[in-house]
């Protein structure tokens, strides 16, 4: 445990420095190593999440593609893929409106990384899922409703 913690400190010294900036409430997508933005992950609705991320009224965009099922067979694993044709994408975030913690993930994409991420999220119930994309310093969004169904014998 101690050894592991030491290696964290060692390898994470750069992150700690940048983390100081993040702790001040400034999120800078595009940073190489952002320390965990606790405040943004503690938000419980979309408006607060956007606020915590320093985003105001992102525009709906057809240039963001969300690949996700219409119906999830199980809420424990819901595949979400986000891609975009917008220029200079530096950040992609996934938000789940009705989850206890709205922000699921926030990706920072350095130059040279394609505007494409795929992951899997948990959903407590049927909800809108939002993709937030930062392109050329501006924020854009798209959403999709995913139905979560009950399954199995229920016992």
């Amino acid at each position, binding site marked *: 445990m101690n050894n592991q913690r030491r290696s964290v400190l060692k390898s994470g010294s750069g992150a700690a420095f940048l983390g100081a900036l993040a702790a001040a409430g400034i999120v800078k997508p595009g940073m190489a190593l952002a320390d965990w933005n606790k405040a943004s992950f503690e938000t419980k609705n979309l408006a607060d999440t956007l606020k915590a991320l320093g985003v105001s009224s992102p525009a*709906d965009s*057809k240039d963001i593609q*969300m*690949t*996700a*099922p*219409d*119906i*999830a*067979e*199980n809420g*424990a*694993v819901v*595949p979400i*893929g986000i891609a975009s044709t917008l220029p200079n994408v530096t950040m992609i975030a996934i938000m789940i409106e009705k989850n206890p913690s709205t922000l699921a993930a926030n990706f920072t994409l350095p130059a040279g990384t394609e505007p494409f991420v795929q992951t*899997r999220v948990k959903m407590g119930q049927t909800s809108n899922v939002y993709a937030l994309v930062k392109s050329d310093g501006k924020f854009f969004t*798209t*959403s*999709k*409703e995913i139905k979560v*169904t*009950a*399954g*199995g*014998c*229920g*016992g």
Partner: protein
Amino acid sequence: MRQKKLFLLLAALVAGVGGLSSPVALADASADAIARYREMIADGNPSELVAAQGEELWKTKRGPKNASLEKCDLGLGPGVVKGASAQLPRYFKDTGRVQDLETRLMTCMESLQGIDPKTIVDGKWHKGERETMAALVAYIVTESNGQKINIDMSQPQMKKMFELGKMAFYHRSGPMDFACTTCHGEEGKRIRLQDLPDLRTQAGAAAGWGTWPAYRVSSGTFWTMQQRLNDCYRQQRTAEPIYGSDATIALSVYLAATAKGGTVLTPGLKR
């Protein structure tokens, strides 16, 4: 956005499906959506993580005898893992028993490593030696992925187990009068949105037997065949089958023999 529109269309379709028009359209739309969901998660089966641990465990010296399982004979000779689970259950002369993968591994763990089978039989799922077992199983069944289900039915002991397994399959009992057939004895049925293979047919048995053991998305854990059968009985509301008991092995023989010629697609990925 387009997806949203598509969804509205689906919703309209759903709304249009009244009591009079066909509910089949709705069922198909849901079934298609579920099929797409399954496709999306198929790439990246977390069983891989468990299998990697299992491979380590197979080679690790453990137990009172401080030995690995590398000399374990799963039916194709000592140490042969590739293709072994596609040919299990099997009659083993050395134990005089028909054994499935897990009971065979118990034999190896006892004889090679000195691990008491009781730690597994009386254990708890995903704890202790049963967790070890699950990892070993994940590794071994991965090594049969893509092979044909091909169990050796030439021995009379196997024939007998097949007949006993079939009887168990039809055995109705308990407060809900259920048997395996209640859910798996007719084609094209489902529970909630989960398709139910008709396990009496070759195609159905291949779809069922061929895709277990599997990673269960709902629990986030890897399930061996023993656990799969255990939970089938739990949902049937019968008494609990003893881990590795003959009834579970007989059912496995019935399923694997019926599935013969089908493709092994293990480990599976399930709801």
